């Protein structure tokens, strides 16, 4: 059994990771930390896990971490980079869910976040999006899992950037995102009377996830890809829908577009194409993936303005966060990649 540690287990992401790993046949959760809740049972913070686990939160210390084989870092950026060097040097595998090691270039990181105190590890880290980096993950000791908005946009755009049928100077990503993406810490804007019944644009230009979106799409296309990215908070707890507006560089048929997605994601267990000509559920909608690790991708061709619309829907806490972390563990330890991630979601919810 693989002994796993969850560093920062009291947030929503830590909670999802805990839920998934508790039911993972090859993993045992050895250690879970929380500064504020050390000594308390995890169910004090994660009510749905009562009678499911007797685990207790502990303080973080690197020697205790050495009882594990792999640790997941679910702490804010900056807190990760302080821990990674020591954890790696003690032979642990690290799956980091923060932003600290997603970006290959130090100056890009420091432009969006803060000074980097462990830049030498940036080159070693592998971007933990299995659909794009499975081979590298197999041998990686430091895996940096993507941001939730980045996952939805990269997964939606990747096939078309690769196929070279879209104008990479005019890409718009208009995302709609649920409230849990702000994490478990609250403020006036997450206060229900303020947060309900809204469509609120936020960080409408220069959102941090843009750096990794453009990094990964640039790698795929071999040239610079620029995205105009704007998220909106909408009245939903879980979920992201990214509507990506692109302009075609040549005429394409629907069949060709569908085959481009099929070809790019051949045999991928967690990518589904959703574009139906009739019925109630024709295009992606986060509601159809809540609780699952699926990313639903749909499209539409708008000949009126030569536009290719791409829709990408995920559960931001799972396929946008804990999902790729567990997929990466499965890949790294050569388990069947879907292990622990088979749950098809709740509908309706």
């Amino acid at each position: 059994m693989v002994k796993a540690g969850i560093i920062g287990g009291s947030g929503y992401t830590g909670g999802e990771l805990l839920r998934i790993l508790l039911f993972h046949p090859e993993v045992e959760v050895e250690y879970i930390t929380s500064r504020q809740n050390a000594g308390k049972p995890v169910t004090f913070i994660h009510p749905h896990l009562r009678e499911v686990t007797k685990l207790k939160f502990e303080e973080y210390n690197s020697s205790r971490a050495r009882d594990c084989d792999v640790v997941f870092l679910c702490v804010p950026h900056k807190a990760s980079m302080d821990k990674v060097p020591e954890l790696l040097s003690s032979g642990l595998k690290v799956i980091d869910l923060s932003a600290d090691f997603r970006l290959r270039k130090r100056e890009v990181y420091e432009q969006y976040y803060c000074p980097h105190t462990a830049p030498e590890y940036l080159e070693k880290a592998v971007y933990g999006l299995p659909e794009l980096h499975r081979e590298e993950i197999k041998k990686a000791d430091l895996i940096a899992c993507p941001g939730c908005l980045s996952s939805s946009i990269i997964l939606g755009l990747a096939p078309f950037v690769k196929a070279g049928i879209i104008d990479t100077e005019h890409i718009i990503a208009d995302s709609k995102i649920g409230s849990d993406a702000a994490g478990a810490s609250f403020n006036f804007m997450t206060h229900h009377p303020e947060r309900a019944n809204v469509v609120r644009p936020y960080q409408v230009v220069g959102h941090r996830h843009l750096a990794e979106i453009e990094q990964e799409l640039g790698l795929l296309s071999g040239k610079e890809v620029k995205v105009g990215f704007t998220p909106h908070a909408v009245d939903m707890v879980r979920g992201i829908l990214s509507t990506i507006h692109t302009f075609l560089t040549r005429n394409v048929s629907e069949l060709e577009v569908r085959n481009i997605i099929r070809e790019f994601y051949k045999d991928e267990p967690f990518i589904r194409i959703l574009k139906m000509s009739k019925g109630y559920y024709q295009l992606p909608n986060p509601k159809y993936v809540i609780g699952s690790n699926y990313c639903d991708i749909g499209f539409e061709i708008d000949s009126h303005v030569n536009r290719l619309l791409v829709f990408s829907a995920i559960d931001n806490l799972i396929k946008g966060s804990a999902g790729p972390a567990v997929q990466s563990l499965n890949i790294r330890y050569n388990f069947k990649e879907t292990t622990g991630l088979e749950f098809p979601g709740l509908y309706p919810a």
Partner: protein
Amino acid sequence: MAKGVCPECGAEIEIEDPVEKEIVECEECGVELEVSKVDGDEVEFEVAESEGEDWGE
């Protein structure tokens, strides 16, 4: 189990003892298809209808 390809979206369709003129719905893209030819376990389909989009609203 006979097999064929949806002319609309290229998805593979499996169908048990198909009969010509039989109506089948493509699971991938939802278009209604008519079995136009049966040859052993090979089936050919044609798009059966061109009814407008039903957005359910």
